[in-house]
């Protein structure tokens, strides 16, 4: 059983996706049922895996593709962090997408690729060696492209083209790095505390070059400046796509890849000793500030959130690039926290766009009166992004700050402070407009009678993710919080 569970987790959405492709367009009920059933099944398997891991079981699926190349799916605490996030958010986003795409065309096509995308996401998380990681990484690119261009308009096609350019180039770099590494040291698995430090010292210079190639390739998806260009452009996709993919799945795959490379391939102490971490820290720091600065002047809500994503995902890279358990914890836990908060914000943006066709911030005056619950969720997400306790973002920033001091990089705190100030600068005006101004836009300011403020399928996932963001911070001290899991992962990384 143990060998099949990781496969089952990946397959639960792959099979669902294939079946959905063949469904006729008008079979809405069956399609929705399949979607939700697939999501619940995946969640069930993930839960089973989590419980088993607490009891000390190991879950590993290994197949030999060719001699020397293994296809490996392995569940370790780091994988569980991303798998758990992906599964929970996929369920919520599926519900949201069903509600959002009501009346759109080509929904079977959409949900088919949607399922493939989650398959790829989960595969990226569970991948146990660089080869498997690369397979799912490229699969992710290919399965997200149709979602980006779903609308079929010229603008969407152009955005899709830009998206492909960037991600294909990134994928090529990851390919080169992976193959080169394989040529040097043979097939290596991701191992806690790194595996390359045991290799022959004459290879170290080549390891350094490979590191930068891999980081550059992964950095495209992780939106490190200047490789971030695809992200704001891809906002032309429908809101569920922006929410799950470009705020959670795709960028997390890139960031997760960086985490895997630094922690489980090179080992953070080894990488630090070879001087590989400082350039990463500089790139991450620059991205954090640059993304926030660009976000300040965007009027389109989704574009502002896109640049905010560019900025926030680099917190993970920042945490990874500093030596010390607190920095590690900060970076890892932000993987989860940023996903929760960002998806809340994108859900809200989608609700505004779908119900009253409000896409610009300048049209959002007084929208809090019309959408109190939605705007409340947005407020929680925004405050979390700024780093106001007790929402989850504060916990990440606190650990990153302490980690920066602990690793001797005190100046990084300036980056964190600047980012906090800039985040306040572009989120607080939105909150001000929504709550403290009177409605004056071309939308109907009256709440619907005897119905909820927005379709429940859209509203409920939004509120749930907001509540989760709040709980992840408020109850961060409990044993079941993302913080506790991050602490476990960090404790295994720093082997004396």
């Amino acid at each position, binding site marked *: 059983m143990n060998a099949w569970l990781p496969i089952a987790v990946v397959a639960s959405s792959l099979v669902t996706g294939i079946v959905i492709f063949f469904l006729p367009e008008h079979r809405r009920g069956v399609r929705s049922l399949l979607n939700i059933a697939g999501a619940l099944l995946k969640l069930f398997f993930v839960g089973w895996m989590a419980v088993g891991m607490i009891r000390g079981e190991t879950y590993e699926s290994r197949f030999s593709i060719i001699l020397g190349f293994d296809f490996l799916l392995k569940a370790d605490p780091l994988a569980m962090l991303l798998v758990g996030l992906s599964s929970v958010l996929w369920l919520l986003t599926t519900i949201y997408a069903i509600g959002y795409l009501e009346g759109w065309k080509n929904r079977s096509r959409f949900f088919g690729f949607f399922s493939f995308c989650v398959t790829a996401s989960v595969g990226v998380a569970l991948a146990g060696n660089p080869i498997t990681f690369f397979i799912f990484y490229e699969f992710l690119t290919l399965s997200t492209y149709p979602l980006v261009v779903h609308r079929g308009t010229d603008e969407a096609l152009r955005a899709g083209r830009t998206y492909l350019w960037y991600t294909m180039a990134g994928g090529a770099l990851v390919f080169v790095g992976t193959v080169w590494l394989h040529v040097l040291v043979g097939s290596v698995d991701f191992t806690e505390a790194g595996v390359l430090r045991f290799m022959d010292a004459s290879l170290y210079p080549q390891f350094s070059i490979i590191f930068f190639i891999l980081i550059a390739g992964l950095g495209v998806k992780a939106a490190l400046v200047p490789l971030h*260009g695809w992200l704001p452009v891809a906002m032309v996709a429908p809101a569920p796509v922006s929410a799950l993919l470009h705020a959670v799945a795709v960028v997390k795959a890139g960031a997760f890849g960086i985490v895997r490379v630094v922690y489980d391939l090179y080992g953070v102490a080894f990488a630090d000793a070879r001087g590989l971490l400082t350039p990463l820290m500089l790139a991450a720091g620059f991205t954090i500030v640059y993304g926030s600065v660009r976000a300040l002047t965007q009027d389109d809500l989704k574009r502002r959130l896109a640049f905010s994503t560019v900025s926030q995902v680099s917190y993970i890279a920042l945490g990874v690039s500093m030596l010390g358990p607190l920095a590690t914890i900060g970076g890892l836990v932000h993987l989860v926290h940023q996903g929760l908060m960002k998806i809340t914000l994108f859900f809200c943006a989608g609700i505004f766009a779908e119900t009253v066709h409000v896409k610009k911030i300048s049209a959002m005056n007084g929208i809090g009166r019309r959408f109190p619950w939605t705007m*409340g969720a947005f407020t929680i997400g925004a405050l979390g992004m700024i780093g106001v306790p*007790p929402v989850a973002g504060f916990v990440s920033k606190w650990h990153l700050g302490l980690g920066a001091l602990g690793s001797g990089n005190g100046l990084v705190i300036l980056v964190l402070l600047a980012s906090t*100030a800039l985040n306040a600068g572009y989120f607080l005006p939105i909150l001000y407009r929504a709550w403290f101004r009177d409605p004056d836009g071309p939308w109907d300011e009256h709440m619907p009678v005897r119905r909820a403020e927005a379709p429940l399928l859209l509203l409920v996932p939004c509120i749930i993710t907001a509540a989760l963001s709040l709980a992840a911070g408020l109850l961060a001290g409990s044993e079941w919080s993302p913080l506790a899991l991050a602490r476990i992962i960090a404790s295994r990384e720093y082997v004396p």
Partner: protein
Amino acid sequence: MSGGWLAATILYPLAAGVATLLMRLPPVVLRFAMATLAVPAGVAVFVDPDAVLQADALLLGTTLALGEPGRIFLLFTAGLWTLAGLYGWFYTRDDRRLRGYTACTLLSYAGNAGLFLATDAVMFYGCFALMTFSAYGLVVHTRTPDAIRAGRLYIGMAVFGELLVLSGLLLSVHAAGTAEISALPAAVSASPHRSGIIALLLFGFGVKAGLLPVHGWLPLAHPVAPTPASAVLSGSMIKAGLFGWVLFLPGGTDSFPGWGFACLALGATAALAAAYAGVTQTHPKANLAYSSISQMGVMTIGIGIGLSNADAWPAAIGLLSFYALNHAFAKGALFLAVGAAHAAAEKTARIWVTAGSVLAGLVIAGGPFTGGELAKTGLKKLSGYAPDGLSIVLPWLLVISSFATALLLSRFVHLQWRSMQEAHDADYHGGAGLLGTWTLALAACAAVPWMIAGLVPVPAVFGGFASLAGAWPVFLGGLVYAGAVRLKVKPMRIPAGDIGLAILDASSGIARWWTTSVAPAMEKPRVSVRYVRNALIPGVPDEGGRDDRITRSPVWAGVCFLTLVVLMLWSLGW
């Protein structure tokens, strides 16, 4: 139940605030919530002050407990907010935005009270943030252009202050290895970065406390809020900054003569300059705002004495707790008097309001038989701890400050009187209920400090009564003001907000420059795929591309070709 009242202190107003936001509650319920919000806190202070509540799952693991200075701070905070809530019952009669007002009040109070219960830096910072952000709603409640402007400055400086505090806390926690507040001061004084940490904490909390030069938001924000909100802003939220100093500054573990002197200088400047600025104001609330800055300046002098001499720190804390308590109730009574003036329709009411204003003013300035006098004589005694040169100057400084305060508050009474003379029928609202609750506040400011005096832990600092003659600076101030009015002296006017206005203008200018010059340049994509292609294939017209262009010059193909040749040759061993 041990700890239950501690939890209720925060949870009751917090839950009520959230319920206000989520549900449509009748106005009576909202007003009742605002009036009773501090009841659990009162119970916690009197009934079960030594309770401890551990919550390992909360934030990063917190414990709630009431420490010694925290008890007094919580006491006057609870008291003042209750008085403001009772007053607000009548003040908000015609308010159309009662729901927002109630929610902001309840949440802000939850943060304000929670501060005093925190034993670790994370919980403290969380409550501080809750209080600060919720109070924004109070500042902009009236939605006038002045209020919006003041709110912008308020939130901008608040975020700035929070960033400084956060840096200071991170450095302190890093030095101590734990977030427990009790361990932080010792670790800070042992740390090599202690000057930086002290600076960050001093100015970070100083934004809240109205320390020069980061006080700019205060004279703009306090006047524009509704009257009960102004009372708590000036009365207890300012003291949160003071409490931050008390908890986190390392005064008790080592002597910092340099920082002590800096505090003394800043405090003295604030005490005198703010008093002058306040005298020249025409709006009574602006006058009172400057009075708050001035009084906080005096309290900063106390902090300075404590910093410069480690032995003085416990005495300083005890005295400042009492000073803060006295000031809170008195300032509250003064602010509420502004509203009471608008409810005083008949002559007896007007005389009552004027007399009450004079009484409250005397309490602050240190008139005879007031809590203020106890505080001021205590401060005089404390200045004995200061380094030699200063311990001679300080008592005189305090005398001058008393005089200046008296001048300032005489101006306030004058402004009150004038506003009552010039009021028309339409201005009156609130009526008897307003006057009644205001009288309650007045009684509190006169009586409570006396009742608490024994509870302050270092009674040795108290001087007890000076004689009536000891209050001569106060009387002199009143006389000089009366004389100045008679002689029609016209001092140089300082606009309410001084530095704050300059900051607002500067920030608007920067924002305008950024959005018009820098941002559009960043939006234009300088390099794109099409740009690259056009650059490498010169002369290609932008038409529909249905013909093949294989006859054009393949520059990039040549580059690719050469690269591949080089790579291949290298791999073949050349």
